[in-house]
């Protein structure tokens, strides 16, 4: 296998973020195992607007008001909202909290 064929390792998602996602989603325990950075909040994780509002509140509670998912989403059009991933949310977190 050369470098081109070697799969790119997918970095794990911050456990703190996964826990907040699971809480907002009222998800069963095994749900978190399927969450990756590429998971779309809307199309893959099936989070609705009220669950996204709960996630926003959870992020602010855990990381402070500068982690503002609502502000991020407010600047997106429909295509970008549909494409929004866990990795995009993770980029909002302070660097020391992402791992």
């Amino acid at each position, binding site marked *: 296998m050369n470098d081109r064929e070697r799969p790119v390792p997918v970095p794990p998602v911050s456990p703190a973020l996964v826990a907040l996602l699971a809480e907002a989603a009222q998800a069963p325990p095994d749900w978190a195992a399927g969450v990756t950075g590429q998971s779309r909040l809307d199309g893959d994780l099936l989070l609705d607007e009220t669950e996204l509002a709960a996630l926003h509140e959870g992020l602010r509670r855990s990381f402070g008001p500068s982690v503002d998912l609502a502000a991020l989403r407010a600047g*997106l059009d429909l295509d970008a909202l549909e494409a929004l991933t866990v990795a995009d949310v993770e980029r909002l977190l302070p660097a020391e909290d992402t791992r």
Partner: protein
Amino acid sequence: MSRFLLVVPPLTGHVNPTVGLARELVARGHEVAWTGTETALRPLLGPDATVFGTGTRAFRAQGGHGLAAVRSLWEGFIVPYARFTTKALDAAVREFRPDALLVDQHTPAGALVAHRHRLPWGTLAPGAMELGRPFRELPLLEEWMTGLLLGLWRRAKLPEEEYVDPRFSPALVLAFTGPALTGPEPVPAHHAAVGPVLTDRPADPEFPWERLLPGRRRVLVTMGTLSGELGADFLARAVRALELCGPDVQPVFAAPGELLPELPGHAVAVDRAPVLELMRRGVLDAVLCHGGMNTVGEALVHGLPLVTAPIRHDQPFVAAQVAAAGAGLRVPFARVTPDHLAAALRSVLDEPGYRSAAARVGAELLAGGGAAAAADRVEALVTPGAPRANPLV
């Protein structure tokens, strides 16, 4: 006597509340007609209703979840349906010569035609979707919707400087909910939240009343128009959850038989249940539903607590309102496990706070005045004896 034309989409949840409103208007001596897809409206309205058909064409099924459902609703239904029906609506107005139109928020063509003929029009907001502007935190999404509506306005060759959002009549926005759910924030004077307008729905004539066992607590499971694998999967989890609730809980499923798994012997299942009659007879103890406004309103005015598993559109918002009011619990449709769902059901059955909150919220919703209050507001759209702005209609 006035003539009112109701412009509605071919969607059961949108048509049903208009039936009770129309009955009240007719009882007051007015004339009422509907316009829309006759093949969908006729079974809901009965043989005697006056219906101006707008033709039949298959539109994208209401499906999906979240933003995909929003896109599908607008691009697959609201816009193409408006384009398809505008001419027929215009013809219906010329033929029926209404004094005012009542236009569902999902059928903006009605507002365009009313504007063209300078006829008074009111908005029907049967769900909570547009009413509370649930996407006000997403301005680019709202802009996208406005762009689609403006496109319809231009296509109808209406003057751009006169643009009015066809979802919100400046004269009347009639909503079948109330502040007990939507919250205490003040609303404009022309918004009338009248609470549920109760209307019996078409039901299976042979409902097996004799199978409702004495001494059991009963949960009605009614999830709107469920289909496909997703629907079958949820119903399978619901069946298991109700088994876990124990033998003292008897489920009554209103769902397509082909989506249901094998049921325990004490479960009752029909395609279409006589929902209001079940509630009126006091044989239910809780309702598991999708958070559709009509079912929620009906349950609450009968003092029934709810477990909601919202799927799309306004359902998550209605479900959140029910939970905030203490009248029920919300579970995630796609993810809830049988254990979690059983625990939620047992909570609303066992903890009296949910039932008392449901009764309180239901009483407050009823205080909105229902069909009578709605008819008062609709009558006020028309000034008796006023000349018609367009004498041709």
